[in-house]
């Protein structure tokens, strides 16, 4: 059973007041996400990520195509008992507290009495808002609202969680916490579908990703399928490199860039082995600070795909 499935999902808008013309926000999206997956839906701003999520939540209606969540049509109210959704840059009600908001949402799912209070308290603790639970939301920072948004998406212990830009507005610590939270959700068997334009997040936690650009899905698969992880060179940080040695680096097809405090960033081509690079450093009497392989990254793949799509659209 798929957690999420779309067939030819398409959304057109009319833009322009006087002479309206169609704008294709999403074009023929065919997607399948299996249960238990952490699926990263990646793309630049305006690519169609939020449109897809809104279509899945039936906040907008498709021009063509269909979508299913947990084998039920996307608009099914009964199915919504089993899913959670964090909108992009969420806002809630100014005059209620996080505790009241979550209690309201929990009640909509049928939670009552002690069970509801327990669930709300546990979630607020989990997202790090336990101490501010009774503060009105108008006094919350952007990051705190984002945490409330994440908590409300999990209020019903959902089987499928949709997160639209979950790291948005969070500091590095908050982003780390959200990544850990997504992995905990995966560990308890939930499916997580999240959109992001921050590729490092996707690379760290996704089992599969889809790349969307200009309203079209341009690639989908596991990270291993998309990124061959071949070594493209060696990245060295070296201290105490003499002027002669810097010149010697260039003759071997490598580059050396001064950083600070006598340190150099040396990029060695993949045509040489790591041993050859290290042997050069030793022979130059320099000190090796670090060495890392340069691999293909998701970012490289992403940029190539998005640029190709851009060119195709332009052509």
């Amino acid at each position, binding site marked *: 059973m798929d957690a999420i499935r779309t067939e030819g999902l398409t959304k057109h808008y009319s833009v322009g007041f006087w002479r309206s013309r169609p704008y294709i926000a999403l074009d023929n999206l065919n997607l399948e996400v299996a249960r238990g997956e952490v699926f990263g839906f990646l793309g630049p701003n305006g690519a169609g990520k939020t449109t897809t999520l*809104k279509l899945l*939540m039936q*906040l907008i209606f498709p021009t063509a195509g269909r979508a299913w969540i947990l084998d039920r049509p996307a608009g099914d*109210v009964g199915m919504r008992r089993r899913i959670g*959704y964090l909108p992009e840059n*969420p806002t809630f009600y100014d*005059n209620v507290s996080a505790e009241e908001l979550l209690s309201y949402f929990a009640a909509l799912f049928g939670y009552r009495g002690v069970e509801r209070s327990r669930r709300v308290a546990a979630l607020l603790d989990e997202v790090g808002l336990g101490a501010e639970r009774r503060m009105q939301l108008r006094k919350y920072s952007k990051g705190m609202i984002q945490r409330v948004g994440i908590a409300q998406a999990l209020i019903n212990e959902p089987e499928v969680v949709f997160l639209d830009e979950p790291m948005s507005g969070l500091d590095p610590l908050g982003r780390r916490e959200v990544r850990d939270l997504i992995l905990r959700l995966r560990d308890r068997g939930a499916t997580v579908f999240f959109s992001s334009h921050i590729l490092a997040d996707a690379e760290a936690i996704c089992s599969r990703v889809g790349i969307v650009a200009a309203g079209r899905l341009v690639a989908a698969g596991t990270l291993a399928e998309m990124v061959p992880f071949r070594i493209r060179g060696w990245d060295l940080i070296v201290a105490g490199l003499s002027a002669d040695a810097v010149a010697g680096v260039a003759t071997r097809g490598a580059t050396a860039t001064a950083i600070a405090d006598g340190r150099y960033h040396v990029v060695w081509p993949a045509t040489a082995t790591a041993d050859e690079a290290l042997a050069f450093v030793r022979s130059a009497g320099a000190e090796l600070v670090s060495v890392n392989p340069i691999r293909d990254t998701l970012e490289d793949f992403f940029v190539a795909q998005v640029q190709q799509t851009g060119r195709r659209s332009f052509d």
Partner: protein
Amino acid sequence: MRAIGLVALHVFRDSVRDKVLYSIVAFAVLLMAASYLIGQLTAGQDLKIIKDLGLAAMSLMGLFIAVFIGIGLIAREIDRRSVYAVLAKPVRRHELLLGKYVGLVGTLVVNLAVMAAAYYVVLAYMAWMLPPAALKASPAPPTDPRLLLAVAMIGLELALVTAIALFWSTFSSSALLSAGLTVALYIAGQFGADLKNFEQVVQSPAAGTIGRALYYVLPNFAAFDIKTQVVNALPIADGYVALTAAYALTYIALLLTVSVIIFARRDFK
């Protein structure tokens, strides 16, 4: 039904804490208290003026609450996207809309009750202060229970204004536009009787027909105004209040039905 109740309760909780609401109610109470001073300036008319001004203050402040908080409930909710998280919950769109309406009408009823209580306190104070001769000259007793009938009609009028505000908000993305249209319709609705008799004052039969058509289509807010009859202890026709209430409820039901249909198909871009 449970979802409607939960949404209504949440709306009530959110809106009764709105600072704008407190300002409006405080202003209304202040206006009623001030009417005592105005009454002092007019020989023998104190009580009548206080009654008139108090009811007018309730009506006007209630209108502000209905328009500004009412429109904020849907238009601002869409504008600020807080509706997204709610509609992803097991709540149907019509349940959200009706819950919002019930919650706001509940807020209005509570505020109207607070204003009416303050009104009666001012009137009771007047009854205590006025010399017996002035009381005797007054057409109705100071704390006349019939005043509650006028308050109830204001409540019905505001319930209708709220339904109109909700109706505009279901398809307009601009809160300001919705507020403007609601107030415009409220003002137009005050001239119901004039529209009905429009053909008697214009030469063009077409203009007369349009006037009459508008009379039937626009909400007749003038019908809810029984202040003069109540304050001056004039009789109100048998069944008038019941008929007006039925008119309001029918109009509200129609507006809510159309709002539900529009809201069910709306794209939240």
